[in-house]
């Protein structure tokens, strides 16, 4: 499967897509300042309203750009942490090295999907926010957890968008997005483990939270049409659990919840130079 071949096929079928894929960059340069147009978050902020209602960042290409923005942030956050002498204790280095490696690979891969040059879409950061996030090791870990758990929620929120789009491109991107999603979850659990927290988000178990929005809506009783907290509060079901008194927490921990694209950008926003 040649993704770039696919793109040109789509373009033939729908010339408007070519324009969209051209990043709407030229179009935007005409109507906005160069500085704003150079900031990828600004593109993400221009999410198509129809998609936004469902929480989608846009079509498959827009979703890749949305994901790439987050991956740049993660990569550059860990890179800065590694540069900062004395921040990461030697015992934690293998964890950080492994995570940083994956984030860099995700950037390379998503840039490749879009046909971008290295760092073509790299955002400008708010250095005050980044420096504060790297103030000391515990703060670094708190922010690493925030970025990983938010990343998990972000990819999760786009999966149904990609499935529903049902184009050759969206199917290809979906297969990749799912496989990044679970890697981010492995990272999130590892960072939480380093902080000696429970590795599954639930109320009161997330340690120092840089922003209450990160875990908003994580404690969900309803899954589809089923209220699982009610189900496990019934005595005959409760007793199937080893920790029957923690039934609600087990339900909350058993399901990670998605975030809409706009919610993710609201959390990540303070890291970027251009406010959204």
């Amino acid at each position, binding site marked *: *499967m040649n993704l770039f071949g696919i793109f040109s096929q789509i373009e033939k079928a729908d010339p408007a897509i070519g324009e969209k894929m051209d990043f709407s960059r030229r179009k935007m340069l005409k109507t906005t300042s160069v500085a704003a147009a150079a900031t990828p978050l600004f593109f993400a902020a221009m999410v198509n309203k129809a998609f936004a209602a469902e929480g989608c960042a846009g079509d498959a290409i827009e979703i890749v750009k949305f994901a790439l923005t987050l991956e740049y942030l993660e990569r*550059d956050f860990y890179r800065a942490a590694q*540069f*900062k002498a004395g921040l990461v204790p030697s015992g*934690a280095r293998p*964890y950080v090295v*492994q995570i940083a490696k994956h*984030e*860099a*690979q995700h950037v*390379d*891969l998503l840039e*490749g*999907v879009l*046909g*971008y040059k*290295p*760092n073509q879409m790299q955002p*400008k*950061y708010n250095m005050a926010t*980044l420096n504060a996030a790297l103030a000391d090791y515990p703060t670094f870990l708190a922010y690493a957890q925030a970025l990983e758990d938010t990343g998990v929620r972000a990819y*999760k929120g786009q999966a*149904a968008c990609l*499935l*529903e789009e049902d184009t050759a491109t969206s199917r290809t991107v*979906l*297969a*990749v997005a*799912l*496989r990044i*999603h*679970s*890697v*981010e*979850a*492995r*990272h*999130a*659990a*590892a960072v939480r*483990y380093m902080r000696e927290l429970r*590795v*599954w988000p639930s109320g009161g178990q997330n340690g120092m939270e840089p922003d209450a929005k990160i875990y908003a809506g994580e404690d969900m009783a309803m*899954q*589809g049409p*089923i209220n*699982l907290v009610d*189900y*496990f509060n019934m005595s005959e*079901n409760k007793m*199937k*659990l*080893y*920790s029957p008194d*923690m039934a609600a927490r*087990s339900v909350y921990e*058993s*399901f*990670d*919840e998605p975030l809409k694209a706009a919610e993710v950008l609201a959390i990540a926003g303070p890291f970027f130079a251009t406010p959204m």
Partner: protein
Amino acid sequence: MEELTSTSTPKKGPSVPAIPSVERRMFLRALGLTTVSAAALLTACQNSMNDLSPKISGARISADGVSFGEGDFAILNYAYALEQLETAFYMAVVEKKTFAAGSKEEMIFRDIHDHELVHREFFKLAIPADKRIGDLEFDVSSIDFTNRREVLNTARVLEDTGVAAYNGAGPLISKANSIYLTLAGKIVSVEARHASLISSLLQPGGGLFAGDYVVDNNGLEKMLTVSEVLGRAGKYIKTAINPASLLALESSKK
């Protein structure tokens, strides 16, 4: 900190405007399509349909075994079967007292058991009774439950397999039922957290939690086909199964 905005990752090969062959190759590799031609892929699918036994050696496969059903129900039942297995495994670990009562590891295995049980009950409630597979029987007697390391490694393999199964099956869900993909996505990341946690118990401070054996050079978690999943998990499933409808669904979406 200045490096942050000015660094440019040295990258291999030209990328723009020519079709970036390196990246294209990377991407094809990511999709597992570098060496397999379309024709070979079709043949492989045919083979997996006609000749199950060599590929799924561990499972008890039988034409009159439990069928997973049609369409999206096949995928939901596939997930339900795996959650049943995981619940049974963790229950066995706790009941057979692999870890000392009250130890950190024992508490973690109790927690994970409870999550798997929540997942199992969720699928039981979510799949209509006339579309749902029954309670499967399992045989985990091949596992030495007195061997801490073997139990941890088995748990790791089961979790890795679960994640890879969800990642492989997710795209098979029909777009009309995208809610199933969202629900599966809510569960798979919890399985990935289990895999990460168990790996941290096995290798504290190391990179096993997202090791190179399970994450490829593009930072993508490896995924598994139905045959590969049954090849790993099938040896614990005592009930005879018939995965033909699931395999047919999988090959129809290739």
